[in-house]
């Protein structure tokens, strides 16, 4: 039984401008991904979700913290060990069109796997393996083999990449926004494929910003904001009974087919110069209690979520693990502590962070 364990992983990026401030992309993120489990990792742009996927795939080295696979720290693999690691842990990314070299046929991705991992396998046996993998992702070999990438649809390309991962003895799949570029009619097929593979024992980290898709496939949900976990637990509990204000806000903004947003028309001088409004128009309030209309609310939320979080001049501090809040903020940056908000157990299998 294989387990991928992310333990206290932090990643700081050094900003080239703004006086060499540091941008924390991940702040002490910990969770475990077990066999046969789909975890959806949900966050808006800049939340660090893609960085976490890259850390797990060892494409980015964390500033501190470890990722262990079956008890072994992935940072310490020898080149041979790393090759074995990639036999078990694979990634599929958002844009299928940029995962292929347009000059070569699409099935070259299979050939490259063979060159690295299956040199001794006879051609006939290898072709059998490819057919089995294509069958698992519901592709007809005649439709895709020998074709160039531009001859395949986005859904076919994405499924071909999953088939490539299946050729290996893959146990963990990092799926980073794999369906956001697909049409609605093919999205569900790829989602159902993940469900099928999960039932066969595959562990999937499903990275997405789309809450309804995350909700559909996952057993557990991790919600990231500014690189820290704000809420995590069994999907039914997190979505059915969200506790953190940020989760609630995300859920309230999801467009649903059969339920309309509450749109409150703005008054004649609804917004003053700084974008804030009087409390009389309050329909929703965000954590710090400022009253806002829906539109101003959205822009405040945007301010909270999209402005660059920067910790200034902290370069000397993180030689060890971070201790204590050391936040300082630039003029347009959100003040942020390197220490993530503490998680408490709201109910069994459902953790919620303190308000930051």
């Amino acid at each position, binding site marked *: 039984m294989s387990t991928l364990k992310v333990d206290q992983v932090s990643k700081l990026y050094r900003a080239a401008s703004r006086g060499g401030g540091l941008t924390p992309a991940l702040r002490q993120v910990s969770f475990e991904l077990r066999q046969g489990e789909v975890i959806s990792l949900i966050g808006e742009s800049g939340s660090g979700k893609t960085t976490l996927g890259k850390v797990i795939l060892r494409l980015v080295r964390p500033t501190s913290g470890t990722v262990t696979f079956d008890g072994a720290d992935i940072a310490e693999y020898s080149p041979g060990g790393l090759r074995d690691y990639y036999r078990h842990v694979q990634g599929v990314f958002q844009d299928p069109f940029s995962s292929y070299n347009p000059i070569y046929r699409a099935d070259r991705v299979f050939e490259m796997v063979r060159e690295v991992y299956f040199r001794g396998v006879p051609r006939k046996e290898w072709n059998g393996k490819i057919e089995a993998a294509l069958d698992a992702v519901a592709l007809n070999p005649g439709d895709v083999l020998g074709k160039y990438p531009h001859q395949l649809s986005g859904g076919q390309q994405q499924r071909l990449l999953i088939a490539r991962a299946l050729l290996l003895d893959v146990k963990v799949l990092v799926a980073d926004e794999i369906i956001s570029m697909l049409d609605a009619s093919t999205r*569900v097929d790829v*989602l159902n494929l993940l469900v099928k593979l999960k039932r066969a024992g595959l562990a999937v980290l499903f990275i997405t910003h789309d809450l309804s898709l995350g909700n559909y496939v996952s057993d557990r949900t991790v919600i990231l904001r500014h690189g820290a976990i704000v809420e995590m637990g069994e999907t039914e509990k997190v979505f059915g009974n969200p506790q953190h204000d940020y989760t609630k806000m995300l859920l309230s903004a999801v*467009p649903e087919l059969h339920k*309309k947003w509450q749109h409150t028309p703005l008054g004649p001088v609804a917004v003053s110069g700084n*974008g804030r409004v009087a409390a009389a128009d309050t329909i929703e309030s965000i954590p710090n209690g400022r009253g806002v209309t829906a539109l101003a609310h959205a822009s405040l939320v945007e301010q909270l979520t999209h402005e660059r979080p920067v910790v200034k001049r902290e370069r000397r501090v993180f030689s060890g693990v971070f201790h204590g809040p050391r936040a300082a903020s630039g003029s347009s940056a959100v003040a942020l502590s390197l220490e993530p908000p503490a998680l408490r157990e709201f109910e069994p299998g459902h953790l919620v962070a303190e308000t930051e």
Partner: protein
Amino acid sequence: MSVSVENLSVAYRSRRGDVTAVDNVSFALADGEIMGLAGESGSGKSTLGNALIYLDARMRQTGGKVTLDGRELPIADPKSMRPRRMTEVSLVPQYAMSALPPTRKIGKLTGDLLTSHRVPNQAEVLTEMRRRIELIGLREDVLGKYPFELSGGMRQRVTIILSTLLNPSLLVADEVTSALDVSTQRAVGEMLLEFRDRGYVKSVIAITHDLSILAQIADSITIMYAGRLAEKASTSTIVGNPLHPYTQALIASLPAVGVRYDQTMLTGIPGRPPSLANPPAGCRFRDRCPFAFDKCQQTPPFEEVKPGHYVACWKVSQEEQAG
């Protein structure tokens, strides 16, 4: 009728002959209507939207006509279209986030735009722009910023303000919410509603592949498939009681919050849309349709089966006739 499109066809020139991306399309928009235009990639929805504003060199109008507020819109004639863009018709292009020139501050860019459109009272327009910027919750200082200093959602909203600055009658918004996070999506969606309510735009065609966004903001939804219209009706009808098999399948393939694979297994639509270079005769959804029968070899008419509800499907027409 604010906008009326009759039998419009638009083709792309290619070396192997014309590819008709918009095939004999007719619809009308009332004043104040936000019409959602949805379909898969390659369905011709962007081509249709763009054709109303700007036909680029590859595109050619091969039939039909467009009327805006009682006057014909000469979409095939760039010279006479030029003065009507921005004042009467306006477009928020797909990838609007990268539509802003990177070396121009927003304020400067606005000035350039107004000058090139020969707007006389620029100072007044700029004051109005400031008012609108504040209205939607941005700060006035965005005028002094470069596009890269703004987040994606802010850029998207600035682009919409620019496109609607001269209060056009028709705004075509192409995938304005697609690359955004949910919270920003909502802000942009509500901004479109607010601008319509305030009369900054008279009517809007919102093009997207995301039906759930349209369910939030659109008054009516038109579904396009392989260059033709499949169904048009009020938003509540399309979402709650669609008649065309394609619309039904699309709606059924959308996961709602709270739906999980172990309770409800959703299904996609097998197959792909036909190539428009050499489309099959008859109904173009035929090969993917679970209800296809002999008559589908002929092209179904896009007809009104109930008041305000248009469908192009033989099965639906027959059932409606039978009562």
